[in-house]
């Protein structure tokens, strides 16, 4: 690894740390700028009870002091404080609970997208401008321009309600099939298009022509030379893909009633459960930032020619 690459990686890690800090700070101050405080909207409570509640959750201290306590608790103990609406539960426990389901959903969807998308893109590139290529391109274009909540609702109508093949409720293992498909379709279409265009790029390179001239067989050219190199741009998509899956899961879990972190997040917004909103935002943001970092570094390490800045 050259010193230039190392310098890039260090710079990138620094940026990621600053980004996470900005997310925490923005989230904290934005949530504390809400008028009325977290206990508004509940049953009218006496001033004494209000003061007691605020003292219990440390809301009576100066804002800056609250901020530093919050920051310290996160950095040292991953502690986001107690939930305001689910009494007696810590935010981090609720997140960990929801994460189990959501992680399964997201990982399976991501794998499905890669496993189907890459071969499909390769096939489209090899059969360029043939019928199969055109079909693949039309279908993926349609998938890419359909918001996930629409895709999810349509799948729900067709497969769960009209045909009744699969359950509409996502709390069982079988019920996760439709949410997984909903989440996987967009990244799959995107990966297909990405693989196709980078494969076409690679197939036009000199070394492929050399291999052909030497008499290397078509299959060997594709698997030995072309596919490996054409997957490099696909690596950069891993970060954005995760971000898509995280935000997509917010609506998909809503549609299919999956007991995951996305649904917990959305309901905490409507419930005004501020520690929960802050905690979930930060955890998901860290996840996305780290994934972006990993895919950027991987990209740079795999192909040092690339000048990212």
């Amino acid at each position, binding site marked *: 690894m050259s010193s230039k690459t190392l310098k890039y990686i260090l710079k990138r890690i620094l*940026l990621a740390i600053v980004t996470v800090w900005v997310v925490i700070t*923005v989230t904290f101050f934005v949530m504390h700028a809400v008028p009325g405080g977290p206990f508004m909207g509940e049953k009218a409570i006496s001033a004494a009870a209000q003061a007691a509640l605020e003292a219990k959750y440390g809301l009576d201290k100066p804002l800056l002091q609250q901020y530093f306590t919050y920051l310290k608790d996160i950095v040292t103990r991953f502690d986001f404080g107690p939930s305001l609406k689910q009494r007696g539960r810590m935010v981090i426990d609720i997140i960990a609970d929801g994460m189990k389901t959501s992680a399964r959903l997201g990982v399976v969807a991501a794998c499905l997208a890669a496993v189907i998308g890459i071969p499909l893109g390769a096939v489209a590139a090899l059969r360029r401008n043939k019928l199969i290529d055109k079909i693949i391109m039309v279908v993926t274009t349609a998938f890419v321009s*359909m918001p996930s*909540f629409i895709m999810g*609702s349509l799948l729900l109508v067709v497969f769960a309600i*009209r045909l009744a093949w699969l359950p509409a409720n996502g709390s069982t293992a079988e019920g996760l099939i439709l949410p997984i498909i909903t989440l996987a379709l967009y990244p799959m279409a995107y990966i297909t298009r990405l693989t196709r265009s980078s494969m076409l790029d690679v197939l036009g390179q000199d070394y492929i022509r050399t291999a052909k001239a030497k008499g290397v067989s078509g299959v060997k050219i594709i698997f030995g030379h072309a596919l490996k190199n054409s997957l490099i741009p696909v690596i950069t998509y891993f970060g954005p893909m995760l*971000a898509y899956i995280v935000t997509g899961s917010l609506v998909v879990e809503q549609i299919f009633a999956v007991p995951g972190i996305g649904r917990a997040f959305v309901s905490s917004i409507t419930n005004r459960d501020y520690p929960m909103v802050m905690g979930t935002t930060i955890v998901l943001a860290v996840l996305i930032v780290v994934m972006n970092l990993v895919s950027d570094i991987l990209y740079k390490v795999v192909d040092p020619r690339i000048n990212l800045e």
Partner: protein
Amino acid sequence: MSSKLTMHVNVDDFLPATEEEKRYMVQMRPSSTFFKDGMKRLLHNRVATVSLIIIIVITLSSIFIPMFWPYSYDKMLGVNPGKPVDSSFNNLAPFTYGKTELKHIEAGEKVFPHVFGTDSAGRDYFIRVVYGTRISLAVGFFASIIVLIIGMTVGSIAGYCGGKVDLIIMRIVDIIYSLPDMLMVILLASVLKLTLGPALAGTALEKIGSNIISLFIVFGVLYWVSMSRLIRGQILSLREQEYVLASQAAGAKGSWIIRKHLLPNCISVVIISTALQIPNAIFTESYLSFLGLGVNAPMPSLGSLASDALNGLSSYPFRLVIPALVISLIVLSLNLFGDGLRDAFDPKLRT
């Protein structure tokens, strides 16, 4: 031309041109400009042309249909002052009528059909879809303009000034760029919704609704970064051109050079990325509406219509399918048109 080295003037060179020679000088067709060239390429692209036509048709109908349509988007047809609520208007199937309307028809009067039926509150669904399209398009358009203005200003300042100014601006851009945008959008939208509501009460902006304003603010805060990066890159390369040096030598100020020389030269890049920003904004708006953070009720947007339709999904699936189709059609045609625009006006940008 004489190839001989001689001081004598070649008299042949000064003969009047013959008719044949004159014909060479006639301009056979008007010379083409950059814009004309691009338009020609664009119109040759069948996909882009069809997309453009679809966008124009959708935009015009969303503007003009509400003007003559006999129903309005927020009129509950079963609710009339002084009369009991007539629930026969709720949840009408397409081309069916409520009780009082059926009486009118029996009496020989003409009643305008409910093309898509009515929703659960007895509002004509067709006009709600049309109105929702109008809102979604307007949100997409104005959000892109906001992004354009902020991104262009910051990007051109960073690119032209260079040095420390550029460094600081670009670090800020880097950080905003690496923020998880959707999470921040949801966070800001949910908080702004609560803070802006009371602040706007009584002002002219109240009618637009706190949610749309907060959507614009969110776009203004978060989405200008890629535009400013793009423009900075353009300006950095344009700045080195000789005509900028010439202008500087003639005493032009920085703002003049940016406005008169640099921005016009990256205008095609700007237009293209603005065109591609619109579907993005429509997407985001519908996503937020779906989560309940979009436009204020009773105003419809395509996202909120789709989200409302989820409640009666098993009985009235068409109420979801119609706005879903319209969103997909708009986003798809804007994307395809943007791609065509890019291919036609800036072939170098093609990825």
